[in-house]
């Protein structure tokens, strides 16, 4: 149960939550744990830099400077997608109609739960690759920095994420179910402390939701 992140998503920043909100957050986590159906899929693709500030991962190309920085010294990428399923969305929707305070806390808890789940799967991947002498960069998602959402159809298409874990796109390239994540994870022979992570790579340093560990 990750109450700390849940509160961060609710905009608490460094403030303490009152007891009532803490109880609410815990109860939301419990309900979400019973309801959400976590699924993920990933596939490795070769990575090349054909020049002109472009990264080519076989199924799509991108000119995102932030992503290129993140993928420095990488030879391959793992395309990754994860979701809490339509079940999480339904639950939030239900409470949006019945009890809004619970809906916003569920929304935050779901975001935190999904991040935790991605971290957990990424950690397993990291260990698996390390045994092969390879190192993984922090995952980087479309929408972070200048990494455009335009690559979502190709990324999800390559993973067959619709068929396999049910992630679809709206005409405006939003993912449905909404509690879903896609990401690119760089694979490299070189171990490097990569600083270009998700939240921290964003230019808005005054954002109340900003991670600051």
């Amino acid at each position, binding site marked *: 149960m990750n109450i700390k992140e849940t509160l961060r998503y609710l905009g608490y920043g460094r403030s303490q939550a009152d007891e009532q*909100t803490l109880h609410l957050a815990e109860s939301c986590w419990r309900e979400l744990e019973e309801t959400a159906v976590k699924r993920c899929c990933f596939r490795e693709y070769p990575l090349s830099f054909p020049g002109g500030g472009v990264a080519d991962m076989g199924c799509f190309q991108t000119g995102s400077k932030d992503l290129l920085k993140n993928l420095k010294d990488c030879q391959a990428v793992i395309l990754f997608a994860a979701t809490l399923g339509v079940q999480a969305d339904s639950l939030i929707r239900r409470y949006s109609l019945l009890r*809004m305070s619970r809906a916003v806390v569920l929304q935050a808890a779901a975001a935190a739960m999904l991040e935790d789940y991605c971290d957990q799967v990424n950690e397993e991947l990291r260990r698996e690759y390390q045994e092969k002498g390879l190192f993984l960069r922090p995952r980087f998602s479309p929408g972070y920095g200048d990494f455009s959402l335009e690559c979502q159809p190709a990324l999800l298409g390559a993973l067959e994420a619709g068929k396999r874990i049910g992630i679809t796109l709206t005409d405006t390239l*939003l993912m449905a179910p909404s509690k879903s994540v896609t990401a690119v994870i760089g694979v490299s022979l070189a171990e490097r402390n990569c600083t270009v992570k998700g939240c921290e790579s964003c230019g808005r340093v005054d954002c109340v939701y900003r991670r600051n560990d």
Partner: protein
Amino acid sequence: MSADILKEIRRRKVFFDGGMGSLLQAKGLKAGELPETWNLLHPEIIKKIHRDYLEAGCDIVTTNTFGANRLKYPAGGAFSLEDMVKAAVANAREAVREKGRGYVALDLGPTGKLLKPLGDLDFDDACRIYREVVTAGSRAGADLVLVETMSDGYEAKAAILAAKESCSLPVFATMVFDQKGKLLTGGDVESAVALLEGLGVDALGVNCGLGPVQMKEIVKELLRYVSVPVIVNPNAGLPRSQDGRTVYDIDEEGFAAVMEEIADMGANVLGGCCGTTPDHIRRLTERCWDKEQVLPERKNRTVVSSYTHGVVIGRDPVIIGERINPTGKSRFKQALRDHNLEYILQEGVTQQDHGAHVLDVNVGLPEIDEPRMMEEVVKELQSVIDLPLQIDTSDTKAMERAMRIYNGKPLINSVNGKEESMREVFPLVKHYGGVVVALALDEGGIPETAEGRIRIARKIYATAAEYGIGKEDILIDGLCLTVSSDSRGALTTLETLRRVRDELGGKTILGVSNISFGLPQRELINSTFFTMAMADGLNAAIINPNSQVMMQSYYSFRALADLDGQCGDYIRMYGGQAGSGDPAPGQGSAKAGTDRGAGTGFGQIVPSGSRQMGLGDCICRGLKERAHETAKTLLEEREALDIINNEMIPALDYVGKEFEKGTLFLPQLLMSAEAAKAAFQVIKDQMAEKGQSREKKGIVILATVKGDIHDIGKNIVKVLLENYSYEVVDLGKDVPPEKIVKETVERKAPLVGLSALMTTTVPSMEETIVRLREYAPWVKVMVGGAVLTEKYARTIGADRYCRDAMASVNYAESVIGKKNLPQYEKGEGTA
């Protein structure tokens, strides 16, 4: 030709082909390239693959049209969808002609979109998309339609309806289950079978997602429920990535060996999906071609379903909650007129929490457009409540609209023995699927004797059979007349129940509470009659599940009738806490602690008399139940408007200010808003009794713009604005600019609030503002959403950027509120 495939299946095991995608990749299909284009670009390769499968012994080749739909091939694109579908069928047809045998299945895969309300594809649009492909494919000479790889029953329904409505070919459907036997959308095997058989598919089964080993359990479960032939098309095994290639955990021979076991279990049509090749199919057909074909027997189960699960109507009585019905309920009627779906949903949730298995939905009011309202309510209910619904209406248009968009196999209330009624209702049941309540009355009225009612029941069964509807899809309503006007009424009804069960082998249903009409202490009579009816075989009861006494009858009957193993449910309900009977699982956990919460210190700011905790304090602390109670007590001694102006408004203002200062946060702001709302409700009810009403300050239109499906921010704003007495018209999410303009102009709204979450949907916000400026020049527009900033908002022409919910309240107050504030006093003056 096409009907022959059904004959063939009755005679012997029939075989599908295997995968297409992986073979095309091997032939050079690039990542990201659309496979269906090869029907036109490389017809010889496609034909060769079909031929290879036919050579390997398969009977049915599936066209290369998995993703061929309007969404992927828009009009005016490089490829004509119609030409491509025609070419796909022609390629398969050609291979069949060369081989001299075989059938062509027009393949329909998922659209790649999630349906509304969680996604952005409308159900009717999904039907239209599939209809286009079916029309082209059937004209080009397909022998059957295969709806496959469906992980959402709702989408499968759209495809099957489209197929049935635009051609007369047999329709097969296969779904994707995970290892737990669930669809991605949460549906179980039983609900999928109920839905698909209800829609009248000719064969159904499972494909993709799993290898044959993992599918065995699913097939076993399928065979328990199914009455039509079963199709099994697994992947080549469980995949894993090896050196950038996909490999499977079993080989061709391993695949065929497990498929043989599956054939022996009773699967009727076998083939493969992802990763399978002609070699897989050859080994499969070699092992299975001469096996005896045993078709599933008719199960005659009476099942209704929601998108998640089925409810079996049998010996164990089913509770149908009757509360979603405006009859005699003025607040419900008002909620319908106001499109206040929250109120209606709350009625549904409460009944679910009290143990209802199915919810009756009746929205009939003389002055409303019933078909439209029925569709709206059913859509909303099924998106947040996972119980099957009973569509209750005498308006066949409303019935059809609801049956069409219903996500499952519904209960229908009702048909009766009149020719006209049967002629109208039975075709709908046959087309959309459903279990229908049949009232034992006809042109001659309600027979006084059980014999007369049984005669009508027989007639109903016989007529239904002419339409192809089995007895299992009919629930005979033996009708109960009020015992106060006919002392034999109850006995006649009970005799009817027994005789339907014993002589006709049918199932029964009753609206139980009619029996006590005109008598005092109605629940006494109702609950006793309910027990008697269950003892005489009643299968489903339409009752108020919120009534403790009725549910006590239900749980005790089940314990006594050996329907509740070791009295488990009975003990769970009543053990330890005698007479409580209030389970409220969903809401129970949602209740905020009654006395918890750090003090806000608010009590010191607003004196609240001698009370320990004043209403203002309850609101500040977000204590919903207590705010409700306190408001009730306060109303005994103080005027409504005094309470609003001197207790509630200052409390809301205080909470709002603290939120802006950053000492209170969103959950608390909303809990306070909900507490205030609960208090307002008490006050509103009392004012309504006195014929008064609390005047609204003005209309605010809210919408999440076209293309955006993230509406939580807009919903937060709505809750707060309502507490500040604004009449909020919530247009929902993914709302086209035209609709926003139309509502604004029609209502002469002074303020519109728009939300958009992502950069990709801000253009649609901008477009909406441009149109509002043109058609509603008076209106002020406030905007909010994650990617917006003050500057960005100005660029797109908004009047105000609202960084949070309080900011939108403040802006509304400055645009509308302040100048209309005197209405509070006015309200008092008219009191």
